[in-house]
C-alpha cells in the first residue's frame, strides 16, 4: 500500500520529540493536545490492514486494525491522556517524552501485523519505560531500573530467537494465532517472551521491583502498558493454550499471597497487577469466545482502576514522600478526596456491583465454570477474596485510617494533591463507575459478540456475600495484618544474589589467577621483551617515528570526537540509541 497511513504512535513520537522546543507557556496545552490527538486518531482508525512497508525482502505491517487491536488501542490511548494529565505539573520534558514513547511502543505492538514490527516496538517499550524508573533518581531506582532492563532484554532475546526460528519454519513473519496444541521450540520461546512481559511467575519479579521504584506518575504508566500489551499478544497468539489456565490461576493467587506480606503500598498494588493479569492469562488459556471477551474486558477495566489506584498511592507518595504503611496512617483528615478516589479504585478491582471489575472479571470466572474447569473458577474466586482484602481494605485502611505512623514532617507535608492530579483521578473514577453501570459501553467494543448479563440476582448476591464477609474476616483478623517494616524475598533473589556471586568470582578467584599470570609474565616475558624492545627502539627512532606520528595525530583527533559520544555512561548511550531508533521509525513511516 503506497498511501500514507498515520500511525497513532507517530503522533506521540513526534509530539515527544518536539516537546522541548515548545515554549513554556504553551507546554501544558501541548501536553494535553498530543495524547488527545493520538487517542482521536486511534478511535478514528478504520478496520483493515494499513501501513505496509517493504523493507529488504520483507513486508512490515504497521497497521492491522481489527476488533482485538481496536479495543486495546482505545484503552491505551485513553490512559495516555489520563496519565499525562496526572503528571501535567512535572516540569522535566524527559519524563513526558519517556512515557509517550512508552505508549507509542505499546500502540505499535498492538497494531503490528508482523513479528518484526512487533519486536521493534516491543523493545521501544522496554527502553523507554526504564526511564520512568530512573527519573525517580534514588540510588535504589537506578539499580531497580538496570535490573528491569536486563530482565526485559533477556525476554526480548528469547522473543527474537523464537521469531527467527518460527519464520524459518513457516516462511512467514505474520503474527497470527499459533497452533497451541502442537507447540514447537519457536512457539515456546515466543511464549516465554510474552509471559515475561505479562509477569507470569517465575518470570514476574521485575514487576514489583520496578513499579515500586518508579516516579509517582511513571508508575501510573507502567501499571497500564507492559503487562496489558503482553495480554493482547497472548490473546492474539495463544488463545486456548491449556498451560495458560494453570499459569493464570497460579499468578492470581501468587500476587495475593505476596500482597499480604507487603509493606509498601505501591509494591502491594504491583503484586495485585500480577494477580489481576492472572485472570486475563487464565481467560486466554480457556480460549472460548466468552473467555477472550472476558480477558479483553478485564484488561480494559483493569488499566483504568489500576491506574487509579497507582494515582491514589502516587498522590500520597508525591505529597508526603512516603509509600510504606509503617510510615503512614490516619491521613483521612489531610487527603480525604484522594481516599475516596483510591477507594473507588479498590471497589472496582474487587468487582463490587456497579464498579468496573464486576462486569469484566466475572466473565472470565463464568467462562471457567462453563468450561467445567471448576478448580480454576473456585481458585479465581478465592483470589478475588484476596483482592478485596488488600486493595479494597488494607490499602485504604492503613494509609487513611489505622494507627497514625506519620512522622511530624510527613504529617506537615500531607495535603490534597494539585488540581490536575485530582482531575485525572476523578476522570478515572468516573470511568470505573460508568463501565460498571452501563455495560454496553465496554461490551460493544469486545472482539466477539456477547450476550453476557452480569446483573443477575444470583451473581450480585454471590459477589456481595463473598466481598462483605471478606470484610468481616479483615476486621476480625486485623491484628494479624498490621504492617511490618520488612521486604519479601521473591524470585529476583537468584539474580540479585547471583550478580553478587559473579562479582565475588571476578574479585577473588579470577583476580588471583590474573595476578599469578601477570607475575609469570613479568618474570618470563619481561626480560626477553626488554631486549627486543631495545632493538626495535633503535629501529623505531630512526624509521617509523615519522610515519606513526602522523597516524597518531589523526587517531587522536577521531578519538577526541568519539569521546563526546561514548563516555561509558550507559544511560546517555541509551538515549542516543533510542533517538536513532526513533528517527529510523520516522524514516520508515514517512518513506511510504
Amino acid at each position, binding site marked *: 500500500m503506497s498511501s500514507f497511513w498515520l500511525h497513532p504512535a507517530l503522533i506521540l513520537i513526534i509530539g515527544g520529540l518536539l516537546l522541548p522546543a515548545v515554549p513554556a507557556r504553551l507546554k501544558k496545552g501541548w501536553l494535553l493536545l498530543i495524547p488527545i490527538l493520538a487517542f482521536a486518531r486511534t478511535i478514528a482508525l478504520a478496520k483493515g490492514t494499513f501501513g505496509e512497508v517493504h523493507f529488504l525482502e520483507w513486508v512490515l505491517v504497521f497497521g492491522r486494525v481489527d476488533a482485538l487491536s481496536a479495543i486495546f488501542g482505545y484503552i491505551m490511548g485513553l490512559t495516555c491522556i489520563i496519565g499525562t494529565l496526572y503528571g501535567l505539573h512535572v516540569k522535566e520534558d524527559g519524563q513526558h517524552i519517556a512515557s509517550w514513547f512508552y505508549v507509542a511502543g505499546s500502540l505499535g505492538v498492538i497494531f503490528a501485523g508482523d513479528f518484526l514490527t512487533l519486536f521493534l516496538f516491543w523493545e521501544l517499550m522496554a527502553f523507554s519505560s526504564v526511564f520512568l524508573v530512573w527519573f525517580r533518581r534514588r540510588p535504589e531506582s537506578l539499580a531497580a531500573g538496570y535490573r528491569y532492563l536486563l530482565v526485559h532484554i533477556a525476554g526480548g532475546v528469547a522473543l527474537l530467537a523464537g521469531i527467527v526460528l518460527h519464520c524459518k519454519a513457516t516462511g512467514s513473519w505474520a503474527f497470527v494465532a499459533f497452533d497451541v496444541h502442537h507447540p514447537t521450540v519457536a512457539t515456546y520461546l515466543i511464549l516465554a517472551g510474552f509471559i515475561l512481559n505479562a509477569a507470569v511467575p517465575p518470570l514476574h519479579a521485575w514487576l514489583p521491583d520496578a513499579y515500586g521504584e518508579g516516579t509517582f506518575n511513571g508508575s501510573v504508566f507502567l501499571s497500564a502498558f507492559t503487562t496489558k500489551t503482553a495480554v493482547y499478544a497472548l490473546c492474539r497468539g495463544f488463545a486456548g493454550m491449556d498451560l495458560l489456565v494453570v499459569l493464570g490461576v497460579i499468578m492470581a493467587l501468587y500476587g495475593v499471597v505476596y500482597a*499480604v506480606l507487603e509493606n509498601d503500598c505501591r509494591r502491594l498494588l504491583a503484586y495485585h497487577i500480577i494477580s489481576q493479569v492472572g485472570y486475563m492469562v487464565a481467560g486466554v488459556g480457556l480460549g472460548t469466545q466468552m473467555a477472550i471477551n472476558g480477558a479483553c474486558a478485564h484488561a480494559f477495566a483493569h488499566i483504568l482502576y489500576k491506574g487509579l489506584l497507582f494515582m491514589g498511592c502516587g498522590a500520597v507518595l508525591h505529597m508526603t514522600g512516603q509509600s510504606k504503611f509503617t510510615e503512614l496512617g490516619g491521613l483521612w483528615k489531610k487527603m480525604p478526596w484522594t481516599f475516596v478516589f483510591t477507594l473507588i479504585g479498590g471497589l472496582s478491582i474487587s468487582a463490587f456491583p456497579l464498579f468496573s471489575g464486576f462486569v469484566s472479571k466475572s466473565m472470565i470466572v463464568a467462562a471457567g465454570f462453563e468450561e467445567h474447569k471448576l478448580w480454576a473458577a473456585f481458585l479465581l474466586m478465592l483470589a478475588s477474596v484476596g483482592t478485596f482484602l488488600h486493595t479494597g481494605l488494607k490499602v485504604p485502611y492503613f494509609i487513611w485510617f489505622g494507627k497514625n505512623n506519620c512522622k511530624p514532617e510527613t504529617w506537615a507535608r500531607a495535603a490534597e494533591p494539585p488540581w490536575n492530579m485530582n482531575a485525572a483521578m476523578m476522570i478515572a473514577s468516573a470511568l470505573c463507575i460508568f463501565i460498571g453501570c452501563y455495560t454496553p459501553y465496554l461490551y460493544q467494543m469486545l472482539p466477539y459478540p456477547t450476550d453476557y448479563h452480569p446483573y443477575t440476582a444470583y451473581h450480585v448476591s454471590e459477589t456481595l*456475600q463473598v466481598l462483605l*464477609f*471478606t470484610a468481616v474476616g479483615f476486621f*476480625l483478623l486485623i491484628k494479624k495484618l498490621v504492617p511490618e517494616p520488612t521486604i519479601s524475598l521473591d524470585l529476583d533473589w537468584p539474580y540479585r544474589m547471583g550478580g553478587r556471586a559473579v562479582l565475588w568470582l571476578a574479585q577473588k578467584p579470577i583476580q588471583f589467577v590474573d595476578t599469578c599470570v601477570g607475575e609469570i609474565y613479568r618474570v618470563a616475558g619481561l626480560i626477553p621483551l626488554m631486549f627486543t624492545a631495545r632493538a626495535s627502539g633503535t629501529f623505531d627512532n630512526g624509521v617509523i617515528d615519522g610515519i606513526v606520528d602522523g597516524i597518531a595525530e589523526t587517531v587522536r583527533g577521531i578519538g577526541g570526537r568519539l569521546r563526546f559520544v561514548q563516555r561509558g555512561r550507559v544511560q546517555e548511550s541509551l538515549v542516543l540509541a533510542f533517538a536513532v531508533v526513533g528517527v529510523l521509525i520516522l524514516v520508515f513511516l514517512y518513506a511510504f
Partner: protein
Amino acid sequence: MKLAQLIESLRNHLKTVVRVCLVLLAILVLLDAIPAIVDKEHAHTKAEHFPAFWAVFGFIGCALLIILSKWFGHAGIMQREDYYDE
C-alpha cells in the same frame, strides 16, 4: 472539607455504623436463602445451593489467605529492609 467532616462523624458513631453493617450482612444472607428473590438456577455447582455458601466461602477464604500467607512470610520470606544492602 465537608468530606472530612462526614468521615469524622461516621468515626464518632462507630458503634452505630458497625451495627448497621451487621444488620445489612444478615439481610444479605436472608435474601440469599429466599428462592423467589435469588434464583439459584445460575449456580454452577450443587454446593452453591446451600444458603450463604458464598458468605462462608468469603470468610473462610479470607482467614485462610491471611493465616497461610503470614505463615509463609514468617518462614523466611519476610526479611529486614536492608537485606539486599552490601
